[in-house]
């Protein structure tokens, strides 16, 4: 069972990595904002599977912290992207 959970953890991580390679390239900020979202969820899933495989119970607390802080980071991202686009509009450089 442990090996199966480890393999699943590795698979989820691989999927996240491929997805990251796509969205970090852009083209827009919105795609990049998804990076935090994607890694938040995928990272939590990989972490939980890893914790179950190794029998480390405290990993669930790490995942809980990650869930809260990844949400916070995503929202900070959107706010920052908005600030930037408002500045561009103000200086007449909006694309």
């Amino acid at each position, binding site marked *: 069972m442990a090996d199966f959970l480890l393999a699943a953890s590795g698979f989820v991580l*691989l999927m996240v990595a491929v997805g990251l390679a796509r969205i970090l390239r852009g083209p827009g900020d919105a795609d990049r904002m998804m990076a935090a979202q994607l890694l938040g969820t995928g990272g939590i899933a990989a972490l939980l599977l890893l914790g179950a495989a190794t029998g480390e119970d405290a990993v669930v607390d790490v995942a809980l912290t990650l869930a809260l802080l990844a949400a916070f980071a995503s929202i900070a991202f959107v706010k920052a992207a908005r600030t930037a686009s408002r500045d561009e509009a103000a200086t007449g450089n909006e694309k």
Partner: protein
Amino acid sequence: MMEALNAGLALLLLALAVWTIVARDAFAAVAGFIAYGLLLTLAWVQLSGVDVALTEAAIGGGLTGALLIGAVGRLRDTEATARVERPKALTRALAALVAGAVTVALALCVLTLPDPAPTLAPDVAANIAATGVGNPITAVLLAFRAMDTLLEAIVLVFALIGVWSLAPDRAWGGRPGVRHVADPNGILAYIARVLPPIGIIVGMYIFWAGADHPGGKFQGATILAAMWLLVMMAGLTDAPPISRAWLRIGLVAGPLVFIAIGLAGAVTAGAFLAYPDGYAKPLIIVIELALMPTLALILALLLVGAPQRTIQR
């Protein structure tokens, strides 16, 4: 299986670090850095450092990411200018040479580390019973190396004083950072009302679990700080003016309690920061309870930044 997973994790970390450095756009670089911080959390779990993983999850990805992305938003107009300053090929080659040399030297050190490795783990195991706490990291942070933790709290206060001292004269004493405006009935305001109660419970739980399981005041305080910042970002509240007396008292209360208990130890137990026999655990809890609000305030306000809004006198 485990080896393959670890190797993949290490490769992914390296790829994201390289992306953070070579990405053309600062926004993309910071997006990569946040992903990097989240992955580092997994690496800490693999290295049996669950306490460190908790800290990294809270600070590395969350708070540092929000801090940097906020700065990117405000510095967007400077990026094109900086691109022109890109150093010449010769400078880049020299930089690569220096970085490569440092890497090789460090790698040689890593490969010649002594075996068996020196460790303090048996000493911690032998003395942990005297502290009454079950988590060895908490025992190190608040009993064996309490001086480090005290100085760290003072460093944080100094860092905040440093940030505040960048305020222009016209804004001194006023509210720090920018005023966030958002639709009070919008989705951002909604999440800022729903998430903080959950976050406060989780933060207190992580703090309380720290006595016997991974967790503790830093991680708990970071979660509380993030929740407060979320409410600020949604425009539901504003940062307090830095001249408020309650704020300034709150910022020094934690370190002062710590120092007072340390001095009391000098009288009753014979050394600064020593705990009398049998009182170690209650004293550790008092110190942690006093430090946590201070840490939450400082971490949040460090992220908010210097006062910059002109105050009407």
